[in-house]
């Protein structure tokens, strides 16, 4: 049984641990709102109790003193809360921006929710179910999707939450500040064993994490992606020579792509995913929409592998112009 460090006589905690860089930011806003709310609640309650006693009906106070109202007071208690609210709004928005803006050097992990488990994929090859190992002191970016219904990635001690939606990528990030094992919950109701879709985020000291990464690694996603790329026959069209019927993918990731009909799109994870599942949606200028859909043929994890493979094609320089 864990006890609260603030009120240790209670048999339960009051605030969760602060185990990420986001947690104190969220909590400071909470303290501000708690303070304001406590003040208001106590004020209203005290006034009600005081008036109820002071102005109770009794001989000598059978008749009330009639007061119609006061415009000054009304304006006062309209404007004052509004100012406090706008402070809370701006503060909340700034925490929100922090919570959803990962630093560019963040370590990337893929997370796929399915009834009723979390599957994680490290870029170095480790796959985990319901556990997520991360290093302390380094930002971790979790790219989320779902294989069936909506789930939600929730780590209370990090104050992080983001729904994982089928058919889309969403993103959460955090930077753990202390080593330990923290609850990972699914927070969006997802069916019968919703409450069993829980796991742990294990934050490890960087050295320990490196050691963990080295052990038991199989093929990396990019390597698996390369194999899948060949198995599915993608390389028959996506190639750099003159037989190419689809765009060459080398050096594609992160670049802007000109589309048929004049649009421009950045080749990010979501675009590559869409191009695999719904190839006709955004066709690259100069190519025919002949690619068949791979929807139903590739699992969400397979798509992740393919995306990582396309990303890995980044470094190889094209031979000659």
């Amino acid at each position, binding site marked *: 049984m864990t006890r609260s460090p603030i009120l240790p006589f209670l048999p339960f905690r009051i605030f969760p641990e602060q185990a990420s860089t986001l947690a104190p930011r969220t909590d400071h806003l909470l303290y501000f*709102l708690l303070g304001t709310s406590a003040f208001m609640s106590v004020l209203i309650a005290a006034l009600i109790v005081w008036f109820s006693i002071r*102005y109770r009906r009794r001989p000598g106070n059978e008749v009330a003193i009639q007061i119609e109202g006061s415009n000054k007071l009304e304006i006062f208690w309209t404007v004052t809360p509004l100012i406090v609210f706008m402070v809370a*709004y701006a503060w909340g928005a700034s925490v929100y921006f922090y919570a959803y803006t990962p630093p560019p050097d963040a370590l990337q992990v893929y997370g796929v929710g399915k009834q009723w488990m979390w599957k994680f994929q490290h870029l170095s090859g480790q796959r985990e179910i319901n556990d997520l190992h991360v290093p302390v002191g380094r930002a971790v970016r979790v790219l989320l999707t779902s294989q*069936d219904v909506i789930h939600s990635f929730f780590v209370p001690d990090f*104050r992080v939450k983001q729904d994982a*939606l089928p*058919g889309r990528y969403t993103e959460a990030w955090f930077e753990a500040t202390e080593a330990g094992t923290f609850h990972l*919950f699914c927070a969006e109701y997802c069916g019968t064993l919703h409450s069993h879709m*829980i796991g742990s985020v294990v934050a490890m000291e960087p050295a320990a994490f490196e050691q963990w990464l080295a052990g038991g690694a199989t093929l990396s996603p990019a390597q698996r992606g390369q194999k899948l790329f060949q198995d599915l026959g993608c390389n028959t069209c996506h190639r750099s020579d003159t037989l190419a019927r689809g765009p060459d993918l080398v050096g594609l990731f992160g670049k802007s792509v000109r589309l048929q009909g004049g649009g421009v799109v950045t080749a990010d994870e979501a675009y590559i995913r869409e191009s695999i599942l719904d190839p006709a949606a955004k066709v690259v200028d100069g190519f025919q929409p002949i690619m068949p859909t791979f929807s139903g043929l590739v699992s969400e994890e397979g798509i992740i592998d393919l995306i990582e493979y396309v990303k890995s094609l980044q470094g190889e320089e094209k031979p000659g112009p």
Partner: protein
Amino acid sequence: MTAAPVIIAPEVEENYLNVRYGVRSWLLTKDHKRIALLYLMAITGAFFVGGFFALGVRLELLTPAGDLLRAETFNKFFSMHGIIMVFFFLIPSIPTVLGNFLLPLMIGARDVAFPRLNLASWYIYMIGAGFLSYTIVAGGVDTGWTFYTPFSTIYSTTNVITAALGIFIVGFSSILTGLNFIVTTHKMRAPGLTWFRLPLFVWSLYATSIIQVLATPVLGITMALVGLERTLRVGIFDPSLGGDPVLFQHLFWFYSHPAVYIMILPGMGVVSELVPTFARKRIFGYTYVAYASVAIAFLGFLVWGHHIFVAGQSMYASLVFSMLSYLVAVPSAIKVFNWTATLYKGSIRLTTPMLYALGFIGLFTMGGLTGLFLAALGIDIHVQDTYFIVAHFHYIMVGGMVMAYLGGMHFWWPKISGRMYPEAWGRMSAIIIFLGFNLTFFPQFVLGYLGMPRRYWSYPDEFQVLNVLSTAGASILGVGYLLPMTYLLWSLRYGAHAPANPWQATGLEWQIPSPPPEHNFERTPVVTRPPYDYPGPEESRG
């Protein structure tokens, strides 16, 4: 059985209850007062069925392991609890019972504008309730009351279609009641009863009706789309067929957020009647309280996006919805301040209805203030979909709305039934409910911030102490609700006969006998004075 000790045998006047007898005279009635009683029976039934499911949920959560109910059953229990309480109790409760009974009386009319439509609304409600009863008997539904896609459309194996149909149908009952009240308020007021002489309960009913008329059809069409999607699987909210599940959430919350105001606005209206009556004082800032109702009804439509801050909504939209959410808190705050100011220099009697009203102000204040936490984007990320949310909306819906409903029921019980309820029992039950409520739901705020997600059948051990407290509170709350039910029924036979105006209140409804005659007013009253026109001492200021 001994007869009740009747001290004076009062001359039984003809009233709406004894003017006609027999089942037919009730089931075919067009009298708004009798329709109110039909609704009272229906929603009381719904309340206790919904309460039964709540009991199951709370008992299961007594221990961390899922041991009392199976997971499937637990999920059906909280889903049925939510669906029944929201659509079949909270939304219809005050408008259809107190509203139906009082609106024509308060504005000096013989009936609502469309009496036949009013009865039809009740039958539509009963048909919807029939579909929902079938759903329960056939094994329930496990989607939660929110019916999120694609779970509800593809993955759930329970009776989603009949439940959606029940909600679709009961929605029309709500729409027609709202329509009836809007037209009644506009066109049926007694001579001299201008808008700013209306009781605040009428203002709040009017604001509620606007929401019912404009928001409910969107829920109807959304439920219809869910039902069709489940039958035909065409992909309207299914990402694997190109649909967008977040779009469903937009449509759902476009109704379901304003629906919270359908529940709470009439409650605010009741409190705005109770506080002046038992302080024997004009309400502080009448026009502000009146306009605040309309402002809440309007702003309440602009904030639904705060339910989906972490659901994949764009950052831009979240910023907009967060700011709008803070705006809707302002008129609510205005109301709380005005009620409190009304007590100042009043002549206050802490009767049962007043205890409920003051309890409402306290609990609503806490519910509203915790709403500010949820509107703050940064905190919402953490507490969304946890018990913090559960606690917050129970403070508004149960602590707020149900307290107001019970306060109103006690206040107007003499008018409705012609009998007085036992005052000592009334005060005791009001206090029990207040304490039981806080014990049930306050620990849930802490649970939520600690991170316990809602709709969990089992949970990690460290959450147990708070859950035990909550379940203990729930059993006290349960007793608290059974008490009024019992003594109000008791008073029907043994209660003292009520005079026309037991509280020396000012509204038009108190100028006629208790219970009222069939057509309310012998001759149409002419209103010449503002509402809450309580006497002051000669030297009164202002």
